[in-house]
């Protein structure tokens, strides 16, 4: 009697464990949905700052694709991404790299354009904006401040 009860409890825990694994694998499989059904486009960025396979591609805050691969071609980052079927990208769509918050994850934002022509599967997003190099901009600001004349109006020395 006791043994049967014990076995029952073990069985329940096992079922819960398998249930959790099943739930987890379904969740992960959802991420592969784009890879199996979407269409591929590419874009070149002069600075890919932290993009990697799996990075989300977003329009108006909605995830519509994922980065498939990031490589180097002619000293620029060549990014291949898979876009959800049914999402049309105009030829003058602009792809830019944004950060969640100031130091968070990177994602690619696509801003729709006005062109009547869509980007075909396998095509390229022509216009991109590189990742903002915050350190360089801050450095420039500091450099600029140092270059300003001091209070007495003397040129910087």
């Amino acid at each position, binding site marked *: 009697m006791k043994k049967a009860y014990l076995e029952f409890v073990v069985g329940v825990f096992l079922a819960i464990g398998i249930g959790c694994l099943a739930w987890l694998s379904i969740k992960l499989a959802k991420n592969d949905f784009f890879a199996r059904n979407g269409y591929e486009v590419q874009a070149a960025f*002069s*600075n890919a700052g932290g993009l990697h396979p799996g990075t989300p591609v977003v329009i108006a805050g909605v995830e519509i694709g994922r980065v498939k691969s990031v490589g180097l071609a*002619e000293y620029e980052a060549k990014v291949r991404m898979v876009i959800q079927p049914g999402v049309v990208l*105009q030829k*003058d769509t*602009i792809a*830019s790299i944004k950060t969640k918050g100031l130091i968070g994850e990177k994602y690619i934002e696509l*801003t*729709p*354009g*006005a062109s*009547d022509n869509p980007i075909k599967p396998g095509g390229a997003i*022509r*216009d991109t*904006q*590189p990742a*903002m*190099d915050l350190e360089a*901009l801050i450095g*420039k600001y500091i*450099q*600029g401040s140092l*270059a*300003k004349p001091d209070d007495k109006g003397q040129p*910087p020395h």
Partner: protein
Amino acid sequence: MLLALVAVGVSLRASAGEPTAQIRATTDDILALLADPALKTEARNSERRQLIQKELDRRIDWATVARSSLGRHWAKRTRAEQTEFVSLFSRLLEETFIDKFETHHAELDKVEYLGEKIIDEYASVKAQVSTKDQIVHPVEYRLQKSGKDWRIYDVLLEGVSLVKNYRDQFDEILAKSSYEKLVADLRAKIPQAVAVAASNPP
């Protein structure tokens, strides 16, 4: 220097160097106009502005800049509204550019062209503008071929696209208010821009 240009720039057409050459020509012409002592008088101020405007009109494809900046909202407007928008937006941008040129050209040290890339009828030209305080500002021009002319449809300053910047702004404005309000705001800004520019010392 030439080798460096060849190494950095990749051209797929025999007309390699054309986009850079045309941008360089327009830039040099505008800088010459700004520096010309004969044009620095009050009397010839508007003549100088018109000459600079002519240079800009030749090199910049205002219709595409305006259309591209309005982005997904463009298709919803009527032909008449689209024409009006191009006219207002390009006037506003042009006045703003000329104002900036007049205010800051004395700080300019030099412009260096780093290389270009041509794919089909599109090109991008990378340059850097150095100011007298030793700061270097990267600039990228994006151009489309129109006959023999390469015309600018976007420019990136410090890596930020002008068209994308306006797309974001227009998206926000149109989400919060109406297209009519946007047009009214543009109209209101033009006389301001003209007044600011006119108040610049020659």
